[in-house]
């Protein structure tokens, strides 16, 4: 089932959680709402679920307006950040809940409920846990019970609020790959909220980057990473070196380096910011390969397979950071205090008005 969010706004007192947000989600897609805390991503998810009513705008499920519908009529499965398991009930009863509260004529027989619950428990790999109380499970297991409970009612949309937020790093990694595979098997339209860019990029078909109640960019993980639409997206999706320069009629200049910036053809000698990811900064002992930023090495720190090189640009005194392989480092023979030339392979250039 497809979801369409049209110009939704929501305020909480003086705080503007969502500001005219529009978004389309295809049936069967797995979409991540990514943003820092307070960006409105959870409010958007709760509005899709019907747990919150928007002040303005509408939510359409498969083209049908569902804005005023109660959560129970929407056919959504919602997995809460802290799972919200019914603590007085066993794992079995938690998963069976949605079936038991069906209207009598729709309610499956007791045997069918048991069968369905056991199917789901084996789907989330919790066979044999049916009789346990939620308190007796680990965080990852509770997460999967919450998922099974949400799936029991065969939702047309699965919504997950920070599904891995409360788990420790190791379990989180395992579970998110598993969730991706589960989604591929079930092919149910899914939306999940996260503040972890790695999680969003790894799991989702498309990523919606949000900031201060607005959508900054919507795209595939590759699109948002390789062609970020705004400075915010660049900064949120990972570390980047920030270079200050000017852009004039489609050509940006940062010290010794000039690059094409075709998206800024209209700019007339405007201040600009250039972003370069540390792994996109190529280091050399001389500037034979072309124009480069002259810098002095301040620190060389090996981090597992890669080496982080901290530098200071000679012209501006700005800090630069590059990530090179151990192999490259050995070839360069870098040491602290040495002169080095840094040449960016990829750039993102934003004229000042874009810079927030």
């Amino acid at each position, binding site marked *: 089932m497809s979801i369409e969010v049209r110009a939704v706004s929501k305020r909480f007192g003086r705080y503007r959680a969502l500001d005219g947000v529009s978004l389309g989600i295809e049936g069967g897609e797995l979409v991540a709402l990514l943003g820092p805390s307070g960006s409105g991503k959870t409010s958007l998810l709760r509005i899709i*679920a019907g747990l919150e009513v928007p002040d303005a705008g509408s939510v359409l499920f498969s083209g049908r307006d569902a804005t005023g519908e109660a959560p*129970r009529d929407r056919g959504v499965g919602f997995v809460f950040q802290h799972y919200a398991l*019914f*603590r007085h009930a066993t794992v079995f009863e938690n998963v069976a809940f949605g079936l038991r*509260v069906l209207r009598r004529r729709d309610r499956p027989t007791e045997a069918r409920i048991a069968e369905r619950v056991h199917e789901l428990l084996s789907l989330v790999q919790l066979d044999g846990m049916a009789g346990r109380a939620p*308190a007796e499970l*680990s965080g990852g297991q509770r997460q*999967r019970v919450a998922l099974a409970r949400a799936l029991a*009612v065969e939702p047309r949309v699965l919504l997950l609020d920070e599904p891995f937020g409360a788990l420790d790093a190791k379990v989180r990694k395992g579970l998110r790959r598993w969730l991706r595979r*589960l989604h591929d098997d079930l092919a149910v339209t899914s939306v999940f909220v996260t503040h972890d860019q790695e999680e969003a990029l790894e799991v989702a078909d498309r990523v919606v980057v949000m900031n201060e109640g607005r959508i900054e960019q919507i795209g595939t993980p590759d699109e948002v990473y390789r062609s970020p639409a705004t400075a915010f997206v660049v900064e949120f999706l990972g570390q980047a070196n920030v270079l200050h320069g000017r852009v004039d009629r489609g050509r940006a200049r940062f010290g010794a380096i000039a690059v094409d910036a075709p998206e800024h053809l209209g700019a007339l000698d405007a201040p600009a910011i250039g972003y370069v990811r540390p792994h996109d900064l190529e280091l050399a002992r001389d500037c034979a390969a072309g124009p480069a930023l002259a810098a002095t090495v301040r620190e060389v720190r090996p981090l597992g397979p890669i080496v982080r090189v901290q530098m200071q640009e000679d012209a501006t005194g700005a800090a630069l950071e590059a990530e090179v392989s151990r192999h490259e480092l050995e070839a360069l023979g870098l040491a602290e205090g040495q002169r080095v030339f840094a040449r960016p392979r990829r750039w993102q250039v934003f004229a000042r008005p874009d810079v927030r």
Partner: protein
Amino acid sequence: MSQAVSIEEAPLADAERMPAAVGPGRARARRRLLPGFRMTLGITLLYLGFMVLLPLSALALKASTMSGNVFWGTAASARALASYRLSFGASFAAAAVNAVFGLIVAWVLVRYRFPGKRLFDALIDLPFALPTAVAGIALTFLYSPRGWIGAILAKAGIEIAFTPVGVMVALTFIGLPFVVRTVQPVLEDLDREVEEAAACLGATGLQTFRRVIFPTVLPAVATGFALAFARALGEYGSVVFISGNMPMRTEIAPLLIVTRLEQYDYAGATAIAVVLLVSSFALLLLINGLQAWGARAERAEARS
């Protein structure tokens, strides 16, 4: 599906058990760092012994000097039995009324905002603070045939003061805070997400209450009920005025003890007191069990 999930954590229960296994010895060594244990425990035991245990043992001693026949002759006399029936029956009914309305009051105080809410919240404890004799004469006035409520009911032919119903009214007043004050914190701690989860799963408001909220607050309601019941069983001051004190009809067990005492029938008073005290202790055990149940549920909540 996958083996990726084979990365498992230890269940939390185990993780929590571990430090506990190491804990006590270390904790004890550490705690004894503070001084004053012998002195404070000594004062506690001494005062407890003289103030509580010695007087109560006088009751046991008196009862033990009575022969079985004499004891049961009084403790199980027709008049005594009638007083137990009234005391237990009215206490049970009052506690039941308080369980139902106390739950509603607690819900309203936790969930809704309305004018006067803070005042109502503060007023809940009135029965703890108001001397029982004051409550007794006020209720008697209200429900007597010439009182504000009694006059209205008298027109409908309903009598409350000087009937068993009057006893129940007084006991309801006395037990009112217990259910409210035990349920309130549980409702406050109730995770709103749990209700939202139920709503997403298709439950109606009533189903959410019946299947999610009620099972969660049930231990607290039961504890509050038992506390109110136990309090009502021994209550004297608020009841003597409104009950009319007619033997066999509106005479509660504590009143019968007083009557026996006034007749210098110490043995008779003791026999009934022993019955009352044993019932109270049984209730105390029940309440402890209920509180343990509630605490278990709360711990489960804290972890899930």
